[in-house]
Each structure stands twice: as C-alpha cells, then as structure tokens.
C-alpha cells in the first residue's frame, strides 16, 4: 500500500532586496560631558579621549523606547515612499525593553498604522540591526514578506548606574529604522555573522540591573576581530574593499570605529572611505546606532543614492554581523 502524504506548497520571493528609506528619533535631552561631570567623577577631556563622545541624547522620563521606535519607523516609511499598508512585517531589534512581555514590535506597528503585520523583537544587542536586516531580506527572498520595516530601538537610561563612571558616560537613547523591499538589482548583500558565547561575561547586566562591560577586553575583541568580519561580508558580496564608499560600524566607541577603519584601509579600502562618527553627538545606542548614523548621514548629504556601504554590528552575546548594502 502506498502511503499518500500531502505535499505542502512552498513560496519563493523576489530574487533581490534593497533598502528603500531611513528614519530616526533620539532622546529629547542633550546631555553633555560637563553635565555628567556633575553626576560622577569624570570630565570632558577624559570622555573625549577614551570614547570620543562630546554629547549624547537621553530620553525624557515619559519618552519610551516604543515612542522612539514609532517616530523612527514612521519617518522611514515616509522616506521610503511607501504606504503603511505596503508594510507586512515589523522587526524591532532591541535589548533594553523594560520587560520581556509584551514585545516592542507589535505595539510599534499598531501606532504607526501598520495593520496586523508579522511583528517580533530580535535581540542580538549591538549587532541587532544587521541581524534584523538579513532576516528581513531573507524573508522577502523566501516569499514570507513583501516589505519589512526594520527598527533598532534602545532606551539605556533605564539600565545605567550613575555611579559607574566607566559605563554610564557611553550610552544614549534612540531609534533608527529602514524599510526593506524587493528589488531586481540586489541592494543587500549576504551576511557575515556569528557569535562568541564563550565571551558572554564581557558585556552583561550587573546585578541584573545595570549595563556593564569589561572595557579593555571588549576593546581588544572589537579592534582585532571585527575588521575581518567586515572584510568577509565584502568578499561574500563579490566585491573588493576598494569598492566600499561608506563604512558604518556600530557606534561603540570612536576609537573602535577608527581602528576598524584603519585596519580596512590597510587591507585595501580607499583613503577617501567615509566613516560614520555619529557617536560623537549621539552616544552608543546599541542596535539603533547604525540606522541612526545612516539617517543622519543621509540628511547631511554625506551619503547618496548608489553608494556602496559596509555595515558591521558587534556587541553583547557576544554577537556580530556585517553586510554590504546599497544606499537607496
């Protein structure tokens, strides 16, 4: 007797995907290094030298993570020139929601006016945006989605110990977003990603409450291990480092950003490579830092349509991800 089993139908989607537009939002309060020196034993010169931050943006008391995600997401949808009814999936990359339930994505989508989309949060810490971008791209290529709103959103204010001068000076609050859609000409390259769970103790919540990192060890990891990941993403896309116009590393620390850029230039990236330095006025906003930097560079005319941009995120987990994208 033959066992007649039903065959499931499968979908496949567009051959390629691309970014369609950007948006961002930040904490309402501008907090300078001098402001911080009134709270903890620190000073402007020390902070500028160690992390390259001049000021960061922190959320108002009543400005929630979701508020910032909504603002950034709505701007990205408008900037992409699509309507909310075109968006069928919302991914929020975040690691600082006040609780695990509910997630940020569903309520963010609803407030933007996107009706009943697939909506979920993704936690790959500071690598969250490139991770989410790849998931979004593969969902479209696999036929599970048509247009995906990807948002990185963080509110570190809730997780800072204002007596820990090594850590509280680093972080900021904000959200950045991009819309991903189908394309005939590929605009999002393959991902180079992974994790290093053996180094989980380098970045964690101290006492379950306060963001803490082993500064020297994280610096060593980021300045030695991340440039090769970025280079791998360029290889996977079938390009050379000399093809890259813009480098947007996670804005962890300006010295890490500069170190990654220097290493890539030693390996063949051009001297006129434009490098995101958004941390200087935004602070480290984890999963939001790459899309905020993209949106700011876009608004300032520092990137333009067709630019070949290399994104690389890295952070707690440890997690990392890089890909090449084309500026919309």
């Amino acid at each position, binding site marked *: 007797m033959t066992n007649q089993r039903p065959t499931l139908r499968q979908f496949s989607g567009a051959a390629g995907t691309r970014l369609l537009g950007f948006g961002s939002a930040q904490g309402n309060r501008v907090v300078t290094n001098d402001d911080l020196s009134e709270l903890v034993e620190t000073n402007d010169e020390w902070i500028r030298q160690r992390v390259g931050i001049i000021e960061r943006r922190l959320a108002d008391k009543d400005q929630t993570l979701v508020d910032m995600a909504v603002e950034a997401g709505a701007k990205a949808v408008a900037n992409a020139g699509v309507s909310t009814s075109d968006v069928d999936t919302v991914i929020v990359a975040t690691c600082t929601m006040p609780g695990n339930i509910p997630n940020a994505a569903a309520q963010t989508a609803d407030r933007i006016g996107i009706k009943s989309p697939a909506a979920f949060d993704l936690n790959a810490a500071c690598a969250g945006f490139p991770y989410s971008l790849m998931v979004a791209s593969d969902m479209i290529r696999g036929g599970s989605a048509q247009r995906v709103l990807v948002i990185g959103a963080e509110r570190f204010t809730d997780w800072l110990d204002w007596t820990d001068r090594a850590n509280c000076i680093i972080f900021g609050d904000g959200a950045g977003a991009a819309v991903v859609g189908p394309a005939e000409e590929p605009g999002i390259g393959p991902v180079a990603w992974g994790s290093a769970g053996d180094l989980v103790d380098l970045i964690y919540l101290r006492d379950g409450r306060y963001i803490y990192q082993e500064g*020297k*060890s994280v610096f*060593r990891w980021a300045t030695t291990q991340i440039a090769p990941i970025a280079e791998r993403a360029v290889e996977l896309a079938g390009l050379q480092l000399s093809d890259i116009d813009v480098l947007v590393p996670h804005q962890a620390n300006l010295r890490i950003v500069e*170190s990654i850029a220097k290493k890539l230039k030693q390996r063949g990236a051009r001297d006129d490579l434009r490098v995101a330095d958004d941390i200087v006025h935004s602070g480290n906003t984890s999963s939001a830092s790459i899309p905020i930097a993209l949106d700011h560079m876009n608004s300032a005319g520092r990137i333009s349509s067709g630019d070949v941009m290399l994104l690389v995120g890295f952070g707690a987990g440890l997690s990392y991800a890089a890909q090449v994208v084309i500026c919309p």
Partner: protein
Amino acid sequence: MSSIEEIQKGLAEIVEEVAGVAADDVSVDKSFVDDLDIDSLSMVEIAVQAEDKFGVKIPDDELANLKTVGDAVNYIASNA
C-alpha cells in the same frame, strides 16, 4: 627568541606607532601612564601588537601589572 635590547627596541616602535610617543623616549624606567601619558585602551593596542611581534600572550588582567616599559620588556622576555 629576541634579546632584551631587541624587545625594548621593538616595543618602543609599537608605542610610537600606537601612541605617537617618540621611540627614543620609551626607556625602561618610564611609566606608561605617568610618564608617557598612555591610557588603558592604548595599552591594549600595544599589547595586541606586541603579541604579534614577539609571539607572547599578554592577557588583559596582566596588563594592569605592567606599569613601566621595563615591566613590559621583562614580561615579554620571560613569556615569549
């Protein structure tokens, strides 16, 4: 295996490249922090380059103990 003199010369070159301190100023009696104004992150960069150059492991925990150029030279000489 490098001699003490070779280690000191090589380390001085690394310090000059990382921190912009003239190699001639990087003598064994100098304190990295107090005399050469090198911060903890630059020390990590110096350690990473020294590891490559001399085939030695310099863990982050150990870095805090290397107060002077001489401490670093001796550590590299006995662990390479």
